[in-house]
């Protein structure tokens, strides 16, 4: 994985001191809250329902065991012994003090981490595929490109005050494991005549007006990528709406101009940008790529897994994915135990995962946008021992992509933007479906819960989506079906009138019953829904 050189380290260290001084000036009254707010947001510090919340960046979801240990340390020293992994592969701490924030950033900087641009109207964490570098289906590892973009976007002077936040995802396989088309810019690496380049999608997003990004450019080579994204951003910075916060994302601009006109304006700007020599030399991407070279895999090791212990076998079948290297496997650690808080991990669990990474995964972990943790380099021979240790720590739920593998935002329990609580709904649903055999029989169901229209829980992309709303001062829940964040991206549709907390759980259960009664061989819930439509579900749920 990428390691800072002295330049990267100097920049992050300077940022810490800059923020330390800004916080000092705020506390001393030299800055008003209005003036300070964008400054703290570009360092990931929110003021939330209960306290300041800090969102730490985990660039493209990759981190080392050492970095993971630091995340545990921060939870213990500065927070309340836990952290929350998010749908953008970051981690959030909910009980931060402003007077500690600079010290936290300094601790992070000591392990090459930061909270730069994890909030605010700027370019956010670049996300990627949690199987990057280890999946046989990728054209190339997308992470060097993501790292190139991370550096380019950090403190970009022209794009520091965009109309709204800007999220970029980079993948490199046809299977989209990062919801790429639901980002402001989504990049899919493809190969043309032996050359790897970027197919660029612009204008996806969720929130109040969800949209799937149209393809804007079919192929950009690495030596022109920066010129191209600069052109995309400049058109947005100049022409994105600033009159209405809910119409300020680039998806609105692309939609209102039309993809063709947006593309035309970008091409014009791109032609201009290419005259400015702002692209790094190809040697720079090569330098970054060298950090992502394959590790020293052991050759000739066993490619078999002894599945004679049933609970272990279930976990392997559900949570372990095929690795490109014989003898190895990709293991997902579920942070979704039945009745648990999706994405939360205690400091002890975080330390344990760091130790397990060091021992069993070449010291590397990934955070997924589904709020789980991946160990990407596990020898098949080690899977059983790994599983035993995970099981002892409550981290071995064999529910990857099953109905209890719920994506949920923090919701009204934590977030001042929310209209309803999301976590209790997730808990009740995972408890209702706790029987693992039942879950496995239902198969893949991506259930996603948002506590408000900002859609941080990605409910538009849920096979089953739940949106919390405020109905005359009471929490109410809308049910949606048919969304997908994969390469077959689609936006979920509302089923009918909303429910209270118990009602939504019953409605979800009824929906799964309908699926089971109508499904054909090989169909997931999403497939059956797409085939039979809303009517059978509506009838069963509303009677």
């Amino acid at each position: 994985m990428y390691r800072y050189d002295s330049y990267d380290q100097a920049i992050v260290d300077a940022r810490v001191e800059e923020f330390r001084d800004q916080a000092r000036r705020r506390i001393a009254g030299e800055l008003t809250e209005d003036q300070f707010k964008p400054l703290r947001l570009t360092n990931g510090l929110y003021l939330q329902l209960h306290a300041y919340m800090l969102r730490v960046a985990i660039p493209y979801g990759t981190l080392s065991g050492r970095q993971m240990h630091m995340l545990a340390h921060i939870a213990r020293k500065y927070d309340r012994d836990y952290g929350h992994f998010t749908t953008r592969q970051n981690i959030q701490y909910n009980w931060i003090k402003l007077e500690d924030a600079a010290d936290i950033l300094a601790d992070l900087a000591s392990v090459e981490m930061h909270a730069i641009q994890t909030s605010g109207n700027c370019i956010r964490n670049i996300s990627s595929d949690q199987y990057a570098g280890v999946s046989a289906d990728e054209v190339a590892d997308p992470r060097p490109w993501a790292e190139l973009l991370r550096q380019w976007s950090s403190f970009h002077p022209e794009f520091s005050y965009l109309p709204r936040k800007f999220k970029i995802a980079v993948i490199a396989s046809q299977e989209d494991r990062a919801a790429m088309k639901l980002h402001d810019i989504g990049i899919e690496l493809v190969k043309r005549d032996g050359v790897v380049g970027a197919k660029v999608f612009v204008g996806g997003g969720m929130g109040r007006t969800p949209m799937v990004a149209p393809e804007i450019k079919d192929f950009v080579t690495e030596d022109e990528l920066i010129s191209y994204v600069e052109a995309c951003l400049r058109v947005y910075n100049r022409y994105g709406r600033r009159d209405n916060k809910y119409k300020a994302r680039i998806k609105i601009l692309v939609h209102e101009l039309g993809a063709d006109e947006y593309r035309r304006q970008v091409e014009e700007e791109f032609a201009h940008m290419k005259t400015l020599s702002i692209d790094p030399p190809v040697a720079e991407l090569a330098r970054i790529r060298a950090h992502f070279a394959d590790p020293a895999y052991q050759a000739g090791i066993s490619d078999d897994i002894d599945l004679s212990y049933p609970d272990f076998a279930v976990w392997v079948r559900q949570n372990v994915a095929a690795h490109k290297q014989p003898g190895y496997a990709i293991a997902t650690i579920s942070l979704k135990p039945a009745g648990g808080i999706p994405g939360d991990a205690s400091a002890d669990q975080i330390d344990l995962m760091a130790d397990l990474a060091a021992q069993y995964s070449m010291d590397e972990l990934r955070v997924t946008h589904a709020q789980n943790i991946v160990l990407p380099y596990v020898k098949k021979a080690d899977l059983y021992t790994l599983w035993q240790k995970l099981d002892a720590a409550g981290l071995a739920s064999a529910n990857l992509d099953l109905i209890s593998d719920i994506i949920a935002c923090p919701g009204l329990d934590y977030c001042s933007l929310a209209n309803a609580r999301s976590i209790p709904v997730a808990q009740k649903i995972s408890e209702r479906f706790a029987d693992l055999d039942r879950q496995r029989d239902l198969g893949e169901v991506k259930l996603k819960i948002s506590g408000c229209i900002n859609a941080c829980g990605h409910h538009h992309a849920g096979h089953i989506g739940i949106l919390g709303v405020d109905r005359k001062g009471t929490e109410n829940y809308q049910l949606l079906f048919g969304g997908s964040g994969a390469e077959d991206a689609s936006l979920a549709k509302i089923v009918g009138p909303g429910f209270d907390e118990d009602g939504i759980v019953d409605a979800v259960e009824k929906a799964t019953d309908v699926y089971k009664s109508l499904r054909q061989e090989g169909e997931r819930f999403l497939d059956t829904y797409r085939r039979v439509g809303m009517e059978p579900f509506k009838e069963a749920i509303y009677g």
Partner: protein
Amino acid sequence: MVDFLSFRDGETATQEPTVTLESFQGQSNATAVRIEPGEDARELIPFLDRISLVEVNFPAFGDGRGYSAARILREAGYEGELRAVGDVLVDQLVAMRRCGFDSFVPDAPFDADVVKASLERYEHVYQKTVDGREPVWALRHG
């Protein structure tokens, strides 16, 4: 406290009042023009050699369109004074300098100590832009 900050060598502030972009296009003798966030800086490109001052207005510090306007003008070869006025905060100084601004008239004066600390803080930058600074990738690869 600093009401007016300039990085241009040895020049005093241009005294001539600015005209709006619309007026400028009608007047052949104006040399100082002011552009608003929604206006297109590229409309000035045919006239750059006769302009000595472009003021870019920031009615709200969160409206970042002026950063693009400035950079566009410098990319087009403008060498005159490029001034940020309005709701301009000292914490924006470095980004604005990097976009090509070389003078500042903020609504609320800057603290001189913060100005100095800001300018000295970042030795390195990641992007190539119009300020002539070598980005890190250029330093890495010579």
